[in-house]
């Protein structure tokens, strides 16, 4: 049987890769995808805990369904905003999003 720690390690690695992508990638779509990766890391954690946790029960899997639903909404809203930016500016590179003074 695969131990719980293995699942948690996969989750942690995915979370880190996602965080790296968010901080480093230039394209708006890749940034949204990286956030998706982070959310999936959370899902792996929740499902692993729901199977192998101290008080393993179904709640974790139900929570996962909620996070997947929210992730779908996230993609819809995020892409809509990206399309609006593309129509106005002609690019979705996040390095160009700097018209406001800092």
């Amino acid at each position, binding site marked *: 049987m695969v131990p719980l720690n293995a699942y948690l390690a996969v989750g942690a690695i995915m979370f880190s890769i996602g965080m790296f992508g968010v901080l480093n990638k230039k394209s708006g779509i890749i940034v949204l995808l990286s956030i998706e990766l982070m959310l999936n890391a959370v899902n792996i954690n929740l499902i692993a805990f729901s199977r192998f946790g101290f008080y393993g029960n179904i709640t974790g899997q139900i929570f996962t369904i909620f996070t997947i639903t929210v992730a779908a909404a996230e993609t819809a809203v995020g892409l809509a*905003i990206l399309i609006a930016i593309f129509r106005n500016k002609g690019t979705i590179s996040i390095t160009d999003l700097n018209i406001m003074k800092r």
Partner: protein
Amino acid sequence: MNLLELNWGLLAPELTIIILAAVITIADLVMSDKGDRKIFGWVSIVGIVIAIYFTLQQLGSPVEYLLENSYRVDSFGSLFKLIFLVGTGIVFIMSINYIDKEEIPHDGEFYYLLLTALVGAMIMASSADIITLYIGLELLSFSSYIMVGIRKKNLKSNEAAFKYIITGLISSTVFLYGVSFIYGLTGSTNLLVISERLPEAFTNGFDFYVYLGFFMILVGLSYKIAAVPSYMWAPDVYEGAPTPVTAFLAVISKAAGFAIIIRILVTIFVPIVTEYNFADPSQTEFFFFEATTYLAIIAALTMIIGNTMAIFQSNAKRLLALSSVAHAGYILIPLASMKSPLTMSIDISNMIFYLVVYLIMNLGVFTVVTIVNRDADTEDITSFRGLYHRNPLLGVAMSFFLISLAGLPVSAGFIAKFNIFVSAITVKSYWLAGIMVVTSVISYFYYFNIIRQMYMRPGRTEAKLRVSNSLQFVILLAFLGVLLLGIFPNTLLDFIYQNFNLADLFTVGFQR
């Protein structure tokens, strides 16, 4: 369980708003594209008044819950719901005057998104289940993302929305990652069950995961209140969003963030004991009362960064954004001062009082900013030049709001800040109180800069500035609120002390 047997009456305030949002959505579809949708705003205000009535009815009743505490009515939630409802009502009055068909072609969307955001905030205040709290958080967040970017043709608005959604999603993912460990240790998402099982896990050698969960939840939720570490979005988003939305983010969204932070952190982490002292139980050491040190550091950094960065801003909305970051730091002080179970109730009451005062003065300021920016067609601080000579009453009201934000006497802001100062002094956090005083003094610099522009600089024109009746009403209301709460703060403080019961956060309650 039969869903029809549940006591749906408990959901009355939320259901009112949800039905209203649904009706407006359908009416918006039926109506012709050119139709005037200001009527939606007035209908929403009536609905919000009805919801306020229902919430007042629930105030003072014992704790009741639906569906295993996924929704509950308690004094904490009801007080916060009153803040959200009153605040959103005022934001509606501002939006009716602000929305321009040219700029926001689908203005019907604006009204029902504001309502769904309100529902999200209300769910965040009155639930004791992490899944429900998370759904409420995301409902509020997604509605805000769209509202920030609702001026589709405006590049600033687009950019602000994208920055907001990226920061928001990262933070909520970090929050969820922390929650997943808490779930793993306790096998439940119910806050009350977690608070029973977490101390056991803590003492059985899993304290690392408890710390991990604590920090990730704190970092994840800090974006909602715009505190360090995720405050960077605030200036850009506040600048790019339409002004009524900025007011909504600064007031209601922030209050909802504090509601969820208090609800989760206090309920889950307070029962954890790090070291029992059997000889003298009063010396027992608690996890949360040690962890307040980290909250104090966050509060201090938030105050310092918010106030010092605000000095360099020339855009009025960016300045107010950083001022609201600084205020998040002030409001965190009572939470960081919870070093013993005895003061917790008063600390949370002080936070609620500060949030009410913050709501009144900030909505006043944003109403004036809406009027002035619309007139001058720029958001620069110079648009305030000569305001006193163009409309003396408006100038005086604005100066008073700014004095209150700065926390000078004879204003409600002074009383609120003084309460918080006392909170910090009572638990001997002198350094935190000191930082608060010093940063408050720094804040005088940029608040008085606006006042100087209004009185001592000649305006672009000398023409009289007209203010519509409904906005006059809002400004009058806010002015009276700041003045009367400054002179008679006890009326509101007594109301909060009477109606807030700390034990409500920890009791299961009963189901009718």
